[in-house]
């Protein structure tokens, strides 16, 4: 698998399909004098052209195995590896969880995930994730960005990096966070334009997408904004103030375009059959997973769907079981639907949280934070199917000064990021200039080659 980052940059502008979504829209806005009059409000005219441009862009890729999209099922709070993908039944640390067979010979996962057990032959399971962060906020930052928090710099989330390194021609955001909680994916030093677009339960309308006035009033307002107030502010300033400095008017145009785009329908899961909707489960997370597939179909690069409530310091088994029930149906249907729609080869699914939970059970029947030896599941794209990587021990061992004792084939957070970026053909060792004047690579990890097919 050859990194393609250099190719992306050197090819810019050589053919129509190589133009970025951004340039494409800017020119359209600059030349479309009637833009603010609401002309774009009623049209989705460029959707098909945009699709073709996108396809042309994709067809340039030299590597057919290059992943196009990433779906992150984010388990906020720290899912217990012992109650999900790494059970140790009949041991001192096992708790009440038992293990069940899966579709992969010799691989057993927790009985809390019976449907997931049926699709494990699609997945690569890592049981040896290791982080140095045991606090929710810091560990979430670490897992989402691949970097430990640094007070001098905000690192971009992996979805932002992938968007930054790729080109698309779609009218909706390329980076989406569904049911985003306290710490959604951010663009960091790459800019807030790469922040994840945050939405709630797909059964509800998208926030702020519909104007609260009728079309005529909105058209008049846009005319007044562009032709009256903006004109006055531009007087005596740079001729291309917007283009070269503020991007304010362009953003207004992009927002207006999005309001009228047909691609917005990707967020609406009611277009799916009832049986498909039901298979994901009757809850927001399941609907979010289904919406993620529809967004991927439209060309969205990264979708994060969050399921919170995994922080089980008390009554661990019952609470984890409850979360697993929701995850189980959704994860199973997500993989099945991606496969059925022919999207799994080009889509990577990652399921995991910021850390795992302690092997020992505390006095409140809970498990506490455990960043050394937890599980993350990968599926799709170039990753191996039906593969297990890493192992933890069922012994309660005295680790002393070695917190990694008893963990085999360790995968550090940065290694996972490097591997994911590599799967997208991104040259993660490439350094970018950051706002603090320090060149920084996209990831400092190492590729785990054995995870690839």
């Amino acid at each position, binding site marked *: 698998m050859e990194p393609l980052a250099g190719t992306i940059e050197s090819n810019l502008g050589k053919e129509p399909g190589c133009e970025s979504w951004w340039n494409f829209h800017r020119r359209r806005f600059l030349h479309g004098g009637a833009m603010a009059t609401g002309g774009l409000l009623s049209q989705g005219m460029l959707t098909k052209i945009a699709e073709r441009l996108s396809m042309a862009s994709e067809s340039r890729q030299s590597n057919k195995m290059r992943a196009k999209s990433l779906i992150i099922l984010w388990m906020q709070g720290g899912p217990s590896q012992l109650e999900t993908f790494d059970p140790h039944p009949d041991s001192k640390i096992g708790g009440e969880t038992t293990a069940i067979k899966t579709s992969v010979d010799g691989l057993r996962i927790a009985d809390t995930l019976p449907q997931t057990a049926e699709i494990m032959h699609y997945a690569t399971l890592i049981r040896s994730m290791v982080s140095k962060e*045991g*606090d929710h*906020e810091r560990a979430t930052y670490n897992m989402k960005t691949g970097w430990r928090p*640094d*007070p*001098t710099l*905000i690192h971009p989330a992996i979805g932002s990096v992938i968007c930054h390194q790729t080109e698309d021609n779609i009218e909706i*955001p390329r980076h989406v966070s569904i049911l985003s909680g306290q710490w959604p994916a*951010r663009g960091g030093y790459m*800019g*807030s*334009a790469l*922040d994840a*677009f*945050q939405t709630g339960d797909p059964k509800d309308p998208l*926030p*702020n*997408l*519909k*104007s*609260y*006035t009728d079309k005529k*009033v909105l058209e*008049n*307002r846009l005319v*007044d*904004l562009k*032709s*009256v*107030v*903006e*004109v*006055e*502010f531009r*007087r*005596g*300033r*740079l*001729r*291309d*103030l*917007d283009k*070269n*400095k*503020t*991007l*304010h*008017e362009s*953003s*207004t145009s*992009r*927002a207006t375009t*999005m*309001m009228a785009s047909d691609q917005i329908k990707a967020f609406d899961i009611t277009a799916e059959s009832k049986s498909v909707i039901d298979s994901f489960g009757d809850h927001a997370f399941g609907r979010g997973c289904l919406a993620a597939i529809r967004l991927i179909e439209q060309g969205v690069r990264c979708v994060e769907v969050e399921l919170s409530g995994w922080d089980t310091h008390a009554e661990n088994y019952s609470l984890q079981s409850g979360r697993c029930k929701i995850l189980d149906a959704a994860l199973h249907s997500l993989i099945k639907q991606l496969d059925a729609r022919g999207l799994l080869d080009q889509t990577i699914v990652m399921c995991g949280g910021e850390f795992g939970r302690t092997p020992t059970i505390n006095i409140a029947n809970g498990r*506490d*934070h455990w960043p050394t030896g937890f599980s993350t599941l990968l599926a799709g794209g170039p990753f191996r199917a039906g593969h297990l990587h890493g192992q933890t021990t069922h012994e309660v061992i005295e680790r002393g000064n070695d917190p990694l004792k008893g963990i085999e084939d360790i995968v550090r957070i940065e290694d996972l990021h490097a591997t994911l970026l590599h799967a997208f053909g991104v040259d993660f060792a490439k350094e970018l200039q950051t*706002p*603090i*004047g*320090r060149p920084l690579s996209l990831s400092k990890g190492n590729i785990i080659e054995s995870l690839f097919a």
Partner: protein
Amino acid sequence: MSENNVPPFLDRIPPVMPPVLIAADLNSAGNASVLHGLPQKEARWKKRLLLLSIGISLLASIAWATSPRAKLLHAPETIASGFDASIHSVARLVDNAIDADITDHNLEKANAANWHTLTRRISLALIGNGLSLEEMRVLEQLPEDKRAVWWTEYLLKDRRSSDYLAERWTRATVGTNNGPFLIFRRRKYVDWLADNFEKGTPYDVVVRELIEAKGSWTDAPQVNFLTATMDENDNKKPDAIRLAGRTSRAFLAQRIDCLQCHHDYLGKVNFTDALSENDDHGTESMETPSTAVANRTGEQSDFHQLAAFFSGTKMDNPFVGLHNSAPDYRIKYLNDENESKVTPTVPYLRELMPETGDSRHKLSVWVTHPKNKAFARATVNRMWAILFGKPLVEPLDSIPLSGPFPPGLEILAEDFSKNGHDLKRLIRTIVCTDVFQRDSRMLKETGSEAVEQEHEDHWAIFPLTQLRPEQVAASIHQACRLIAIDESSSIVSRLELFGGVNDFTKAYGDQGDDEFTQQSITIPQRLLVMNGSFVSERIKHNPIMNAATRIASLVRDDQEAVKTAYLATLNREPSGAELNAFCERLKGTKGTARSEAMGSIFWAIINSTEFQWNH
């Protein structure tokens, strides 16, 4: 503008007796009769009296909560109308230094900005929103050349400015993370800073209290500077590593974080022991570093020796809080095989550190020592960023010890040190400069981004910067309320502002500690302002709350109505073209239709670049 239509007697309502007390009093006087079965009629009478008392108390409480208190604005003569002469002379020195730099680069200074623009800048910097219509009207009554100074002085006496600056400093010193739930109280920390800013406590004293803090995080709010770094799961000691990084960045503008893991390989962290002996702070030489100064590159030990100052800070008993014990810091340096014990020491100018006292006391004295120029430079740079939306040196918290320093920085830093580290004086001085009072438009339109950028970089024009989320939210809210929302406003008004700004900022995307880094605007941000309920609720037809409706209904003349709307939102008069265009929109409208037309004018203005950018 007479908006104080609440009857004056409401201001004189005596303190309300809490219902619980009333009930208790009644009970103590007459409980025997109630308990011992006195005639039912008397018991019923007392019950009615009790209910009546509770009702009156509730009504009085509501009246108190919704009524405005006396405003400083009602006594404009109590505000100073001029700055101290010494402030003017320092401001001129800064201007001379910056003007010389502009001339050297063959650039042209912009004209002076008008008072509307200037007072809006001051407002945005000191309280985070534009002026209310009420405040604009008061300023109009003052002589034009006195308005900016008067407005600065007014805001420096207004609690809003202390609160707003305290929030900025809180971000710099403890960040925006929630911190450990049980042992960190962000609100208390912000209030403590605001109290000190309001009182005019010298800034070096504030910083020393932060670094040396002891006790409980609730009784001594400054302790939260330390507890913010503690781990909830192991809450015995603050994180010395994070505190070393914070202290050095926030108070000294030294980014030494990379030294935590290795020596400085990139030449980004340099230390010098040279003291600036030049007291002639008006000369250009002040701005140029001495080439004879010996620099040394930062080493890994520099970071850990600084962290070691915090290593003796412990919390054995949560009821007692933080206390000091002997420093105990060990580290295995890169390429070393064994751990070494680290003795606390500072990376440069070690002679400024006192020989006695506990380790954090020694550190705090060294950090704030007048000869440790980095302290004053860091403060000046942060205050400059707050006032201009952009620091003198970027990044904000990284100023090389040995320069080069931009024109003006050393002059302001010197004055800050010599005048008791007075933050208010620093604000006055910067506001007094011609640089701050320049227009953001160039004298001649060049059409070249590079040329305009060069003018901005050398402060020949006022920089155009995007408002931060909380500034956008508070400006929208204030523009849609005719009366200023300040300490004298009812608690309901203040809660509405506080809650609205917090919700909007969260949805808009808070930049966290990194708030002075310019980011491009995003589609969700535009959608939020275009279609979100925060704006729609504030511009819809609402004769009681919303400025658009009130202007539409109370100002019958279309031209006056448009002018009033512009003053309330952009804090300026409309141009002829704007006036004509919007009068057309209002022409012939009445009642709700007129209110909605005015709401649309507010929408267009609020969604404009001019409203959402500082200029």
